[in-house]
Every structure is written in structure tokens, then in C-alpha cells.
């Protein structure tokens, strides 16, 4: 392989060896790093979730189908942008994938002029997505430090309720609420309520 720095990693999942191999040949010609998998299962077990990459997957495959793979990735909260390869007559399925957040779909046989920009676009998107994902991951890490009670308190703070009201809601004293609040601020590295809200809402947003 050439030593030219790669533009990014493209995962190719297709059960047809020829399609897989030729796609690799095509994309490598465009200086992408290509990693091929012959099934969705292999891909799920082998791919590096931290790597900024995009995924080109055949919508029809023996074993786990492209759609199922997408579901798995959503479950894993993977930021991986996905593009589906569809055959003739698979358009309704492709529409489904789009609704679930797929970037796009391309029909076989591919037009190079469509495929390359699409990959480019996906990798761009992947960078942001991975950054967001990183952030979200760290937020999640922080949030996971909170106790159940603290989470309840934080929920009400975000909802804009006063300490007194929170105490009433949870049937605890105001002092205890204040103590929880202090703990929350400390655990989430927040100096101000605004920081706190930002962290908390970012997490909620990611969840939604």
C-alpha cells in the first residue's frame, strides 16, 4: 500500500466477496483506508468503536441484515455514519434506514461520482459525531457518579424548582437538598448552576 496518509477509515460490510473486494479496490484508489467484513456479526465483534470512520453496508445479507446491524449500532449509541447499499427494488427498505438515521443509500451498481462525495461527507460527519460522542461519553461518565437521590435532585434543579419545593417533593429537609446540591456541583465539576444545566441538558439531549 502506498504511504500516502489516509483520508479516513471506511468499513465495508457485504456478504458478496466480489462487491466487497471491488469496493475496497475503488475506495483505496481514492486513498481511503478500507476495512472489509463479510458479515454484520464479524463487523460488530471486530470494529474499533473509537476510530473515526464511516460504514457502507449491504442492506441484504445472509445472517444479520443491514437493517439489523443499524439497530445494533443505535443500541450501542454508535456515532458511526451509515450508508446502505441497496439493490433493485429495495427502496422501501432504504427509506426505513433513513428514518432511523442512516446518512443515505446508494444503489448498485454505484456511480463513483456519487459514492466518493458521499464517503467524504460521511467522514466529515463522523468527525463531529465522534467528538459529540466523546463529550457525551464523558458526560455520561460524570453523571454515572451521582447517587439515585442526587439524580432526583438534579432532575428537579434542571426543571427549575426551588430547594424548598424539591425538599417537599422528595420529603426531605432543605438542608439535605442543599447538601445534595453541593455534592452534585462537585461531582459534575460545575461551578455555577449554568454549568450544571449545560452538563445535565447535554446528557438529556444525547439521551433523547
Amino acid at each position, binding site marked *: 500500500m*502506498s504511504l500516502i496518509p489516509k483520508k479516513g477509515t471506511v468499513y465495508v460490510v457485504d456478504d*458478496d466477496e*466480489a*462487491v466487497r*473486494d*471491488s*469496493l475496497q*479496490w*475503488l*475506495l*483505496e*484508489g*481514492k486513498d481511503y483506508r478500507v476495512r472489509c467484513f463479510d458479515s454484520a456479526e464479524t463487523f460488530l465483534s471486530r470494529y474499533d468503536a473509537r476510530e473515526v470512520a464511516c460504514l457502507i453496508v449491504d442492506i*441484504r*445479507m*445472509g*445472517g*444479520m*441484515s443491514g437493517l439489523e446491524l443499524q439497530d445494533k449500532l443505535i443500541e450501542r449509541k454508535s456515532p458511526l455514519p451509515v450508508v446502505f447499499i441497496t*439493490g*433493485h*427494488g429495495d427502496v422501501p427498505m432504504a427509506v426505513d434506514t433513513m428514518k432511523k438515521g442512516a446518512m443515505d443509500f446508494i444503489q*448498485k*451498481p*454505484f456511480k*463513483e461520482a456519487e459514492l466518493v462525495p458521499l464517503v467524504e461527507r460521511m467522514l466529515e460527519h463522523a468527525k463531529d459525531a465522534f467528538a459529540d460522542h466523546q463529550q457525551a461519553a464523558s458526560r455520561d461518565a460524570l453523571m454515572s457518579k451521582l447517587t439515585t437521590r442526587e439524580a432526583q435532585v438534579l432532575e428537579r434543579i434542571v426543571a427549575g424548582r426551588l430547594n424548598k419545593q424539591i425538599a417537599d417533593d422528595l420529603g426531605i429537609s432543605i438542608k439535605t437538598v442543599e447538601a445534595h446540591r453541593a455534592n452534585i456541583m462537585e461531582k459534575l465539576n460545575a461551578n455555577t448552576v449554568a454549568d450544571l444545566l449545560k452538563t445535565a441538558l447535554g446528557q438529556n439531549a444525547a439521551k433523547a
Partner: protein
Amino acid sequence: MSIFQLTKELKQPIYSKPITYSKARPAPFSQLQLHLPILEKNLFEGVIVAEYSLEGILRFAIPAEISGQYIVSLRDDKNNVLAGQANKAKPRVTEVLPWLLKTNEYEVPVMPVGYSLSIHAQTYRTAPGMIGNGMYWLVAILSAMTAWLLIGSWRHTRRRVQAQQALMAETNFRRAMENSILTGMRAMDLKGCITYVNAAFCQMTGWTESELVGRFPPFPYWPEEDIALLNSRLQKELDGNTSTNGLQVRVKRKDGNLFDARLYVSPLVDAVGKQTGWMTSMTDITEPTRIRQQLSAAHDRFTAVLEGLDASVSVAPLGSEELLFANKLYRKWFDPTTQGHLSLVMQAGLPRTTQSTSTELATVGADEDDSDPLAGFPIDDLQEIQSENAEIFLPDLGKWLEVRSRYLNWVDGRLAQIVIATDITPRRQAEEQAQAQAERAQTASRLITMGEMASSVAHELNQPLTAINNYCNGMVSRIKAKKLNEAELITALEKTAHQAQRAGQIIQRIRSFVKRSEPNRTLSSIPQLISEAVELAGIELRRRQVRLSQVIASRLPQVHVDPILIEQVLVNLMRNAAESIDSAQRPFARRQVELKVVPRTEQGVSVIEFSVTDTGSGLAPEVMERLFEAFFSTKAEGMGIGLNLCRSIVESHEGRMQAENLYNASQISGCRFSFWIPAR
């Protein structure tokens, strides 16, 4: 003298013993002396002696009538005759029958007592003996005769009793016979008066014996409307004009029913040969008449059927020009000669020829026996029903004929051959048409199959095309960037070419599948036709993400089939299986079709069984029933010819096809379609 002394002492008269002077002449005589004492004052004075001549006494003392009848003699104690005649020579008969002696000899002792004199009287032997003997013998003979008569009459009586018994037995036997026979018997005297009827006659007519005997014509069993006719007939009968064939008459039963009867009349003759009347026997011929009518009707029908048959029927004995039977159509098609028959037999290559060829085959290497007079005849039992079919074309008639023949024993016992030729021209044409139609249908079905598979085929073709496209684009961009070395280029080009071949193969396979071809049965290798079918069906299976597992027995024999048609069946079954799995939305682990090909035995015939098992939701009972019906489909766009055609293809290969649901407990876990074709 002692007597003197005695007289002196006893002073009593004393008789002396008779004194016989045996030497006296001319004849010996006897005397008796009586000594009378002379007493004086009781003193013995002397004796007076008186002499009696015994002969004289007898002569004077016995009356003449007695002496005429008896021989009287005076005898002493020693039975010496002193006086009179003696008849000592006794007749022999009296010696034999001594009891008769006593009856004619009497002895009376006479005085003086002590001298044992006796008068002996003997009847004359002559007269009384003869009469007595004669009587005796007469009586004896009469007695013997009487005894003989008695025995004779006893014997006679016994014989008579025996004869009587025999007669009784015979009579009973006759009576039983008479009662058991179904023929009615009626006897008439010369005037026409019924003198006798038997049980069968009574039973037949329903009248009792007492009601019939003594009746004069018209008899009660005569139907009113026939009385005149019957009267005249009876008159003829009485005149003696009877026909030996009998008369057929109608008879009325007591209950009014009529039946047909046949009468036979014969004269009744008594012991001395004089005719006393007529004996008539009557038979109920209603049943025979009915049967005869039916038989004749059956014969008419049979003839009508044979004549009206749209097949020519001819019977001819073997080795003869004679035509035993030919129906109308035969006469119409051929001349009424055996020519047509023989030409049919010849052309059809009927048993004779087939048999002889097989004989030849069987006797390869053996000397052929030309002198066998039965050469060419079927070797099997000729009576055995063997019929051979052949379809021949007769250019003269311009007809296709189905010819069947078999051997039969003709009514005269000759071995004959019956040939039935049926005009099958329209059927033949229809068959040809149907055949052509079936071929068209099969081709159409394959086209439809491919049409239905179009999207799968497109997908399948897309794979190599996409690959080719990618390789080419990759090469282009590399060449543009000038970073393509030769080795890489060659590899890429080779891969491209390979993909192009792949696409070509798919198209080729589809083409050969769809291509209209003449039915072409050849010895085909099963693995090869399976792999073709699997490749085609694989297109659909892959698109539906259904895996195929194959269980193919090793060393399968070659089969005589049309490979394209069997492939068509397999492709259809596998496609259906994939569709069924798809519509049941099975998870991937259960998306599997199994194709199994194994040899097995079906009713003693070795067959190859193909089965396709899916894991779909099976067949509903109502679908199962109509599964192989034409134009029945469960698919929205299905035409309902797939399975129908599959089955007819299998059946045209003398195979059978069936479908069954598979169960996992009570849950339908799939469906199995299988068919077998004979292996040979």
C-alpha cells in the same frame, strides 16, 4: 295119578291139565279130564272121569259169527295152541307198528283157574288189516298234504306280505316323487273328466285336489277368455291328436294370476292295454320364458352394442382365412374378409411378433427350431387373458387406430384371435395438441418463474456488475493518479473479467432454463441437474436471505428424464420454500431450506426421492386440498400454474408428488414438498 289123588283128598271135582296127544293121527289133539269124586257118606268111593275134547268145546261153544270173524284158539300158559287155529305168523306191518297188534288180539283166561288156560281170539288179518292200513295211509298222506299245504300257504302269505311291503314302499316312493316333482300331472278319463291331479298341479294352479277331481271342462283353471280355444284343444286331445312338442297354454291360478304353461299329453292305458284316459303333464314355463326372452333381448343388445360400437371387432381363427365374426364398423372399414384383420395384426405387431422377438432374444445362441408347428405362437398359456395394445396408422383409412387383440377359444373350440381396433385419430390429435400445450405451458411457466424472479435476477446480476464497475472505477482513478503498478492492474483486470463471466453465467443459466426446447428425455446425472437447479433457485434464496442445505446421496443412478423439466420442478419448490420462509418472517437462524435427494423403494420399485423442506408456516388445510389445482394460488400475483405444472411434470415421468406440513409439537414448523421418479 295126581289128579285122582287130588280129587280123592280134596273130595272135589278137579280138572286136569290139558293133555296133548301130539303124536295122534291124523292130527294132534288135546283133551281135558274132569275127575268127579263119588262120595258115599262123605267117603270117597271112586272117581268119575269125564274127558272133554278141547277142540270140540271150541267148536261147539263158540258161535259161528264169532269164529267167522276171529281166529279163536285155546292156549296154555306157554302160549301153546291146544285147540283151534293159531296164526302165529304176524304180518310185518304189525311188527313195525306193534301198537296195532293189541287192537285185534284178545286173550281171556278160562276155568279152571290155575291151569292158565286162555281163549285167544285174533281177528283175521286179511280183511280188517287191509282196510285199516288203507285208511291209515290215506290219513297219513292227507295229513302230509295238509302240512305241505299249510307250509305252502304260509310261505305264500309271507311272500305276499313282502310284496305288499315292497309295493307300499314303491307306492310311497312314487308318491314322494310325484309330490316332489315340479311338473303338474293331471289324468282325465276318455270323457274329459279329471280323475287325478298331483300335488304340483294343485300347487301350480292353486286349486285343491278335491276341487279339481271329478270336474268336466271347462276346468276352473282355464282363463275365461281362452275357454273356447282350450275347449277345442281339449277336444283334439281327446281325439288323440296331440303333438309331441306339447302345447303352450295360459293357466289361471285360483287367485286370478295367469301363467304360461306347457302341456304334454300321453294316453293312459290300463293293465290289459285298453286306453282309459289321458295323462297330461304341465310345466310352468313363465320363468324359462322370461329367461329366454331376456336372453334373446341380451343377445339383441349385445349384437346392437357390437354393431354400434365405434370400434371394429373381428375374430379370426389362427392360420385361416375364415372370418368368424366382424361387426359393422369392421365391414365398413375393411371388406368382409380377413384381409383387414390380418393387416391389423401384422401392423400392430401383436403378441405373435412381440412374443417371437422375445423368444429370439431368449434363445440367443440356441438353435432355432423351424419345424415347430407352433412356432410364432405365444408360449404362455393361450387361455390366459393377454391383451396387447398398439397404436397404428392406417394410411388407407387415414386413421390412427388403437388395436387390441387377445386369443380366445372360439365357440367351436378353435383358437381364435379377436382384434378390436378403435379409431383414436381425434384422441391422437387431441393428445398431440395437449402435448404441445403442455410444452407451451411448461415453457410459459418457466418464463413466468423467471419473470417472478426478475428482481432477484436483477439483484443477482447487480453483484458482478457492481463489482466490475467498482474495479473499473478504481482502475481509472489509480491510473489518473498514476499510482497503479502493472501487477495490481492485472489482478484487477482478472477480477473484473471473472465478474463479467459470472454475470454471463447467470444469464446463460436463465436462458437455458427459459429456452423453449423439445421434450428431451435423456439419461441425466442427478447431481448435475441439481446443481443447475440450485444455482437458479439460489438467486431467489439469496435475495430472501434463506440458506440452502443439501443432502444428496452419493452414487445416485442416472435417470431417464428431461433435465430441464426436473430442474423446473426443483427451482419452483425451492423458490416456494424461500417465499414461505420469507412470508413467515423467520429469524435468520431458521431461514433454511433443505434439499434432500435419496434413493428409496416405492412399492417395490426403486425410485429417487427429491424433497424440499422449508421452515415456513406450512400450508393451511384448505390450501393443502387445492394445492395442485390449476389456477389456485395463495400468492397475490400468482397464476396458480406452478405446482400444478410441477405435478404434471413429475407424473409425466411416472412419479408422484406430495406435500405435507411438518410439526414441532402442535406448532407447524415447516412444510415438505417431495416427489419421486423411478430410477432406471
